[in-house]
């Protein structure tokens, strides 16, 4: 099986003021991609829903590419690391 890594799916400015609604839309997007609510739930790492819209999820390369092609997605990129300065 292809390895899943954390990817950040960035959707830009949020479309709704209700954070629950924003998170729900993230779950739906992931659910459509992965095929089940259970998989979507297991894949989700974070829902970014206050300052902007997006989510972090465990995805394979091909899943990341698929979701990146959706028109509402600005970018999908793998997680990276910062260091203290």
């Amino acid at each position, binding site marked *: 099986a292809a390895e899943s890594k954390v990817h950040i799916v*960035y959707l830009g400015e949020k479309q709704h003021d209700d954070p629950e609604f924003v998170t729900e839309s993230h779950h739906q997007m992931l659910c459509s991609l992965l095929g089940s609510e259970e998989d979507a739930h297991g894949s989700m*790492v974070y829902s970014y829903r206050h300052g902007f819209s997006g989510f972090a999820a465990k995805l394979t390369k091909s899943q990341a590419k698929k979701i990146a092609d959706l028109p509402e997605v600005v970018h999908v990129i793998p*997680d*990276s690391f*910062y260091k203290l*300065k």
Partner: protein
Amino acid sequence: TTRTWDYLGLSASSPKNLLNETNMGEQIVIGIIDTGVWPESEVFNDDGLGSVPSHWKGTCQSGEMFNSSHCNKKLIGAKYFINGFLEENKSFNSEESLDFISPRDLNGHGTHVATIAAGSHVQDISYKGLAGGTVRGGAPRARIAVYKGCWYLDDLDVTTCSSADILKAMDEAIHDGVDVLSLSLGSAVPLYGETDIRDGITTGAFHAVLKGITVVCAGGNSGPEAQTVTNTAPWIITVAATTLDRSFPTPITLGNNKMILGQAMYTGPELGFTSLVYPEDPGNSNETFSGTCEDLSLNSNLTMEGKIVLCFTTSSSSGSASTAAGSVKKAGGLGVIIARHPGSDLEPCVDDFPCVSVDYELGTNILLYIRSTSSPVLKIQPSRTLVGQPVGTKVATFSSRGPNTIAPAILKPDIAAPGASILAATTTNTTLNDGGFIMLSGTSMAAPVISGVVALLKALHPDWSPAAIRSAIVTTAWRTDPFGEQIDAEGSSRKLADPFDYGGGLVNPEKAVKPGLVYDLALEDYVLYMCSVGYNDSSISQLVGKSTLCSNPRPSVLDLNLPSITIPDLKEEVTLTRTVTNVGPLNSVYRVKVEPPLGVQVTVMPKKLVFNSETKKLSYQVRVSTKHKINTGFYFGSLAWISSVHNVIIPLSVRTQVLQNYFDEN
């Protein structure tokens, strides 16, 4: 911080200054995204603080050795974000890890930077007698909200921060109601584009800034090489680090009675005249000798035992000193003199082992003395604290330099602040702490200085945008030290500092209160910027949440209304526009004064700006052309608008590129 704020002119004792006019920032919340917090530190005492600001919606999250009662009216928020880190580090064992699965700080870095930004006053603090004074933050009554997103990875002995976690911390901080976000972390070059989420800080910062939250970031510690600055998005305040007017001279006396003042944080007893050695082959030995600091362990114990050892290193990192000290100590040596290139990364050696740094010139003097006598000896006395003249201010060696590699037309860093040998709180179990306080160096320490100043400015001018606050800081910065002496950029060799070292200069908090004019930016300006760097309409529309169309031809990045002008590829004449907003007296008249870069012609139209009750915003055009016939490096100048009370100065940086996109090396 026992010197930082007095040095910058923000003394608590002055009856009327920015600090007192803003009640020390009491209504402002500074969000710190870092390694967490050590809540027991005295710097988080809430003595005399009023109730938590009404706009605050954050909470204190409980976890390992941390519960909500650790928060108070000073430390008003504490959360932790670890999911991204856990997913990427499957070997991490939360049960066995040294780190706390909570907002509690293990590393001490988060506690340190929080102190610098907004720590409460704590008197009579020193590092074993050095750098004594009162520790406090820039905005000592501002509230602190800590977001822990950096974790200790035991396997690799490193602290690292997943961008997924940092982005979540920023998302929560925006929700919680922070007024300023301070991030003393970053990635290394090559950088990802600032208009996409390849850099989480950049993206989170974009949305924070659109909501009026100023985001302050460390510029990085990859100096003194050019093109190393990080966190370079135009909506971020990127901070460089300088030294203070403070040093720790350490007398070393040679057997011929010549005294040399090295630099150290040596607080042990005097080491009387002791045999001195430079490990080198006398010419008749089969042993291995090395006088290189990193290779002292190659020497036999006999060479160093009972002696003070002189070594040379080409590295300016404190790691060389600690490696050398460790090798000498292990061999039974009594002290080490490290001859190195000038740098600012000074640290005490473990267990108060005598280790003193000198430059190559002084190191060579010592070497010549050793070679001149059959029984060289040397005495080391404890370090002392020297404050004020003749100690000059320098941009620290480690501070990352411009130009900005992503968008060279965007000047980075923006501003400089003290970030070398800063004494502030840490955890009580951090190596080299003294009573919960430690000296640290880095742009990590410089960034929260600016966050503290921003908090005070925000308290005084709650309606100013993050861009206006940045402009106020940049246009009023000192281009000398606070006493009028020039600021050098430390490196090899030392030179006069320029905008790629320190942006507008060294932050001058009092001057920033009344900048006269500001170069403001709003959403539409950021859209123009994204259009200019090639983003497509649909992406920009999604980013900003409304339909946008880039003009055709696309706008020029040179027109982004920054408090700086940087032209990285001048060939033909260019004309660019800036707009200034009057935040000073209604009826003000400003006249332009240009100091053009070498060989560059700069014409400004109009030459006079007249503001009144009707006219608060005016634009001017700058025409720039070059006389150079070759590809040059950057040359620097300035453009100032001068009224009877204000000098609004922005840096000018111009590089001629007759042959463009050309690696200029031959």
